[in-house]
């Protein structure tokens, strides 16, 4: 009953002037605003955590209890500590204005100036690719939790082709990337077949498959074919120079940002075309929005599930091979384990970006910047990297609970409603 009323209200809302509508888009409860506010909250809560965990700040406060007059200096110490941490995070992930000014005035030191941006883009590149893979699946109503395993399989496939075949770059590099896609797609196809033909739940199967792939990685790294000769550890052969994604500005520049970002850009363009313009993408969206209507419209649900896992797994696999081919040029038993598990981060980013390719690009850059900046902060101030992880988590937490944001910032107006990107576990 109340839904009917709500509809009637929004339908009947008087036409606003374009200018007012533009303003509302960024001032009210639009997804962009909510995400920005979530970031603000993350930063504020992060500041509180710095205050209560920094020894310097706590000492200053302890001191001020005994010397009442020192409250001013205590507040200054507190502020300075927090400011130093965030300054280090910003200058370490985007740009340091001092260095920039120096570079502009002298024409030197561009390498150091641009390193933070270069690092942020380097970290964001595989995240964009993997997150789009996950996002495409989520839009179809299927939860691919196995992106990490698919990325590792992509890494294995890519490393095999990149290190064991020796052909000119024009063939070798595309072949290596293709091997990554095939590795991820095959890895995704197994849960896909299980879901399509036996009705197994994809969340359970893909999640568990991550562990299977971990074992496959160890096995592959200790096989004579892939293991670096003369090594007892699980470490692979190196990529041929003809199979790596090299730094755009050359190896001497010191900037790691590689041609991988063009691969990521191509994936974004592909994803936009795929979701908006392709016939298969249209079938995916219909299936995601209404599986019954999809079936009645002649769409074969089994085919969609299989195609989806090929696309989603293939993209995750591509992310894996891009990661290996652009940074380390080999893989070891720690490949994509733990905090480097881009396949798990991808799930978070896909939701943060509301499953839209451009949203995912911004989400990936934010996560990469927080990670890179967090390391710079740890180096400069001694505050642990975990603070960056906490801020990431808080942003996601608040984005996932828009009502909370609206309450905190007293946002009540605006007709646009914010919906969660996902619907539920069942499909």
């Amino acid at each position, binding site marked *: *009953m*109340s839904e*009917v*009323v709500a*509809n*009637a*209200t929004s*339908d*009947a*809302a*008087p036409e606003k002037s374009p200018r007012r509508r533009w303003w509302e888009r960024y001032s009210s409860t639009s997804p962009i605003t909510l995400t920005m506010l979530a970031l603000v909250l993350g930063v504020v809560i992060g500041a509180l955590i710095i205050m209560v965990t920094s020894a310097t700040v706590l000492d200053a406060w302890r001191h001020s209890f005994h010397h009442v007059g020192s409250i001013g200096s205590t507040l200054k110490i507190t502020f300075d500590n927090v400011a130093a941490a965030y300054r280090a995070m910003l200058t370490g992930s985007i740009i340091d204005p001092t260095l920039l000014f120096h570079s502009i005035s002298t024409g030197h030191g561009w390498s150091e100036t641009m390193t933070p941006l270069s690092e942020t883009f380097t970290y964001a590149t595989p995240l964009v690719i993997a997150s789009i893979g996950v996002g495409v699946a989520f839009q179809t109503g299927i939860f691919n939790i196995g992106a990490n395993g698919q990325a590792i399989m992509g890494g294995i496939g890519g490393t095999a082709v990149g290190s064991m075949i020796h052909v000119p770059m024009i063939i070798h590099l595309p072949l290596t990337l293709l091997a990554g896609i095939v590795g991820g797609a095959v890895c995704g196809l197994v849960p896909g077949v299980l879901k399509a033909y036996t009705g197994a739940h994809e969340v359970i199967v893909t999640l568990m498959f991550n562990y299977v792939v971990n074992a496959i990685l160890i096995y592959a790294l200790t096989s004579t074919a892939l293991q670096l000769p003369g090594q007892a550890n699980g470490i692979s052969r190196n990529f041929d120079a003809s199979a790596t994604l090299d730094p755009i500005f050359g190896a001497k520049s010191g900037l790691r940002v590689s041609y991988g970002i063009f691969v990521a850009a191509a994936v974004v363009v592909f994803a936009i*075309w795929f979701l908006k*313009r*392709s*016939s*298969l993408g*249209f*079938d995916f*969206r*219909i299936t995601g*929005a*209404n599986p*019954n*209507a999809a*079936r*009645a*419209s*002649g*769409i*074969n649900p089994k085919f969609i599930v299989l195609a989806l896992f090929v696309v989603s797994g293939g993209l995750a696999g591509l992310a894996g091979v891009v990661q290996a081919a652009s940074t380390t040029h080999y893989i070891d038993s720690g490949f994509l384990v733990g905090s480097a598990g881009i396949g798990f981060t991808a799930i978070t980013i896909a939701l943060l970006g509301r499953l839209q390719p451009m949203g995912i690009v911004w989400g990936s850059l934010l996560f990469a910047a927080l990670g890179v900046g967090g390391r710079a902060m740890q180096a400069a101030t001694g505050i642990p990297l975990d603070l960056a992880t906490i801020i990431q988590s808080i942003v996601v937490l608040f984005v996932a609970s828009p009502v909370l944001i609206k309450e905190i910032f007293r946002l009540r107006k605006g007709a646009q409603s914010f919906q969660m990107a996902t619907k539920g576990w069942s499909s």
Partner: protein
Amino acid sequence: MRVELKGITKRFGSFTANDQIDLVVEPGQIHCLLGENGAGKSTLMNVLFGLLRAEEGEILIDGTAVNFANSGDAVRHGIGMVHQHFMLVPVFTAAENVVLGFEPTRSFNRLDHKTANAQIHELSQKFGLEVDPDAVVENLSVGLQQRVEILKALSHDAELLILDEPTAVLTPQEIDALMEIMRSLARDGKSILFITHKLKEVRAVADVITVIRQGRVVDSVPPTESEGELASLMVGREVNLTVNKEVTPVGDVVLELRDVVVRDDRGLAVVNGVSLDVRAGEIVALAGVQGNGQTELAEAVAGLRRVESGTISLRGRDITNLSPREILDAGLGHVPEDRQRDGLVLSMSVADNLVLNTPRRAPFARRGTRNLTAVAANARDLVQRFDIRTSSIDATAGSLSGGNQQKVIVARELSRPLTCFMASQPTRGLDVGSIEYVHRQIVNQRNEGLGVFIISSELDEVVALGDRIAVMYAGKITGVVEPTTSREDIGLLMTGASVVDHV
């Protein structure tokens, strides 16, 4: 109890849903509120039941002005409401549902089943509403579930009962039973406000009919008014309730069913040896009470349900157990029974829904890339030709009224080359204006030589449209008769009586 609404005005933004509505319900009166979908009936009832607050006007109960802050206030003042979509807990028993919120308890807050059952029993006796208190609601038929809702309202000593579109989900027999209940409640002095857009039942049961159009009371008339008069009051123009059909030559068989057996989800053979022909240029209407296998038969023809045995062919080509895609491509147009579940993607645009099952066909796509210009051109053309009322072709299908949603499906199906057109419950839930429109479209297709297969549980529709009427009962065709056959005879066939007059 005498309830009076005076000058009720309810606005949503700049839209006036109710405009200065006056309405009086006398004790013991069955007062019918008649109007098309979106006329403001439900808004008015929500105001009366305390779910919405009116901007202007007042509600008087026995001459005293009352003010409802919420529906609880309305209940305390003796108003009960049975919603169109029942608000019952499916896994609870009838008794548990009735006492829900006001449960009699024993020590430690345990539900006192004995007292609860006794209360229900007493209520059932008093009002002649037989319901087994221990029956689990999800196992009850829709008609009985509605009884539980009515009992629930009566258990709060309701003097005025609001029934919101109570017949939309009922079979003809259940509708008759409901009307009997309404009459007996009225005899006991209860007032009933009955909301509907169906003309027949209004005239059968109402004491007074108030017609609402676009938020205003158009007129209050006695039930002796003719259906045609009521329809024009409701729609605001002359409405043609009978469908004009020319005599057209009948061609070859386009849809042929031979000994078709189909099982339902529980594995029962709900379609048990059905044979039927539909020829080009004729409308075959399949009548029958809902639940006698028609739904499963339609699904089987569309390829959505496996055919156990027997054959289905489309213009001589065997399509038994082909995929839905192959059957669509073979030329079957299909309007599914549940349009929101199977026919549309509500979150997608009208334009996308108009190519939902032909997205790869030229000119809508080329080599895997959709041609959105062609999709939009197609949408503009169909929106105009089929008079689909939408704010834009990019509006979501979910924002359309039920009638316009159905037009989207009909337009989509009729805009591609067809061999046979099958429509399940084509006008269920539609208002008079839309029914008239959809019927005219169907008859036009038949006149142009298409074979049409209609599956409907509305006897009026079957008689109005069918050139031949097949009646289905318990999974079998009990007879195929001329539309001139008396309603009594068709009714007999619907209950499984022996074959009357084979065609």
